[in-house]
């Protein structure tokens, strides 16, 4: 049976996953990505699919009933108190009862907003939708860039994430298809929520490459964190030093992934495509360029065909320079997934004109970055050396 072309989850409703005007997490990047791909004529209307909200039962695969209840209440509380918990000029919003903050809701990172349950469930539903289509063999690959909310825990919101759609999806794949799942997380922040969900599982292997937790949120994901119980060895962490650049990062990623694939043969790959490790990203200190964001999806695409019969579900994630980084990085995931060549090309003029009018930064004119945009890193040899040592230490653990 000839499989259909990859699917792309999108619906304007997804843009309502919005904490407040000044919050760094801005889903406008979804629309920008869709319009960019449409301008290039590589995203057909028939490839767009609207998500269906995850049911409570599905959310409970990863979250406690108490937490789901609290998220629902938080949305109602926010609407009764004027929508979003944005801070006023004096720095104080309305008081959030401890009931919520003890679940990470109504914090500075993850404020409460009207309808938060509905849209967070929609995001999780989008990831499940792609998962079902892939496992039923209708498509080989699909993407839900609104997902990849990897910091949410069983009973706690964290780091801009309400429901952990990646964990919900993986639980769904294990439960309904008895699948062996490999989760690959290239966000600059450690994929702590997903790791925690499957820390003791050997059906699910998680790999996270991120900026070291020594300074950066969430402060976890050390080399020695390798899973527990029967899942020992099935969690892999690759902490990169601050200011790591493409070459060193790609080298580490490739070396470890090759060992991962010879150790664990997955039925399906779930990848998280946070693109906040880019030079321009304001939240992190890694120094990747579009070179990495070209190679990551190309490699994963190849691995999917070599090791998991093509089954690959891609998700979004972090990415806080929505003007200069996210649309280009995610466009490359889509190009790779559709088996289209990823070559440098000019950004579409109409698209650029529309978004440049809103952007505080001068937007790049080409798909690929130019080396002259970036400064030289003075400590490069030291950083590369440290990363090589980290990789050697990780590889020692493999049988």
């Amino acid at each position: 049976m000839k499989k259909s072309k990859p699917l792309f989850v999108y619906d304007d409703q997804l843009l309502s996953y919005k904490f407040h005007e000044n919050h760094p997490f801005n889903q406008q990047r979804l629309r920008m990505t869709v319009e960019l791909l449409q301008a290039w004529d590589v995203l057909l209307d028939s490839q767009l699919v609207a998500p269906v909200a995850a049911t409570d039962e599905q959310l409970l695969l990863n979250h406690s009933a108490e937490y789901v209840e609290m998220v629902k209440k938080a949305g109602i509380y926010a609407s009764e108190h004027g929508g979003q918990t944005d801070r006023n000029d004096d720095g104080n919003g309305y008081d959030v009862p401890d009931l919520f903050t003890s679940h990470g809701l109504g914090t500075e990172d993850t404020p409460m907003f009207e309808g938060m349950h509905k849209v967070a469930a929609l995001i999780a539903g989008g990831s499940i939708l792609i998962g079902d289509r892939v496992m039923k063999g209708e498509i080989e690959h699909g993407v839900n860039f609104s997902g990849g909310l990897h910091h949410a825990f069983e009973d706690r919101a964290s780091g801009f994430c309400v429901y952990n759609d990646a964990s919900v999806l993986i639980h769904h794949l294990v439960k309904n298809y008895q699948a062996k799942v490999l989760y690959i997380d290239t966000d600059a922040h450690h994929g702590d929520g997903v790791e925690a969900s499957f820390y003791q599982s050997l059906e699910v292997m998680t790999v996270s490459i991120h900026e070291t937790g020594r300074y950066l949120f969430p402060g976890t994901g050390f080399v020695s964190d390798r899973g527990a119980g029967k899942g020992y060895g099935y969690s892999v962490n690759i902490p990169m030093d601050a200011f790591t650049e493409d070459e060193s990062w790609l080298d580490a990623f490739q070396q470890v992934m090759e060992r991962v694939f010879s150790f664990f043969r997955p039925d399906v790959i779930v990848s998280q495509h946070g693109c906040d490790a880019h030079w321009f990203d304001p939240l992190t200190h890694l120094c990747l360029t579009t070179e990495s964001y070209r190679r990551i999806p190309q490699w994963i695409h190849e691995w999917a065909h070599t090791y998991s019969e093509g089954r690959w579900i891609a998700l979004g994630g972090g990415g806080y320079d929505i003007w200069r980084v996210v649309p280009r990085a995610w466009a490359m995931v889509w190009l790779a997934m559709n088996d289209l060549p990823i070559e440098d090309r000019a950004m579409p003029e109409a698209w650029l004109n529309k978004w440049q009018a809103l952007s505080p930064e001068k937007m790049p004119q080409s798909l690929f970055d130019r080396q002259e945009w970036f400064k030289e890193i003075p400590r490069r040899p030291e950083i590369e050396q440290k990363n090589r040592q980290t990789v050697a230490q990780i590889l020692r653990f493999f049988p």
Partner: protein
Amino acid sequence: MQVRQIMSQRFACISPGDTMQQARTVMLSKKVRHLLVLENDRLAGLVSDRDIRDVFPSTLESPEQHREIIETPVEKFMSRMVITIHPNDYIEEAAMLLYENNIGSLPVMDGDEIVGIITMKDILHAMIELTGLHTHGSTIKVLVPDRPGVLAEVAEVFKRHRMSINSVMVSYPESERRQLSFRIDTMYPQQVVKEINERGFEVVWPPKEGNYEKK
């Protein structure tokens, strides 16, 4: 943090008349490096793995040759001048005693009663906890002048933003200023960093914002 919070309440002990061989067996089986020597429930001495190694015959010799030695009672080579500590003492005092006397453990004594033992490893573990290595969050390092109230001024910024401080450490990288290292429960420290800078303190991590400047 008090010694009682991190000491081990389970400790291995032997009697002064027990042999070196017995002492060695207890150490190996209980995986400890220090044995308390008790006589009538009173602390009479301490035997460390180094004491054993100092007097243990070469393993290259035949058992016949060293039978007499390994049957030496521990009272012959145990340390009698044992440095101890009280459960209410602070762990930094315990650390100082270990450091200054070049020893590895301290029996914890409440009067005449032995209530536990604290080892170098316990101190290391406590240090890992105190530095906040295992706490969640983003690290913010600030250089501040050495004057009263300065910590509160910085902490007030976190309070305004309803951010929990999971850990805080003070160090002295230069003579005029102190460095405060905070572990803050947030993924987005950039706004508070800006405000701390605006208050005239120097944030040394994360590096300044801006496209190229931040690197």
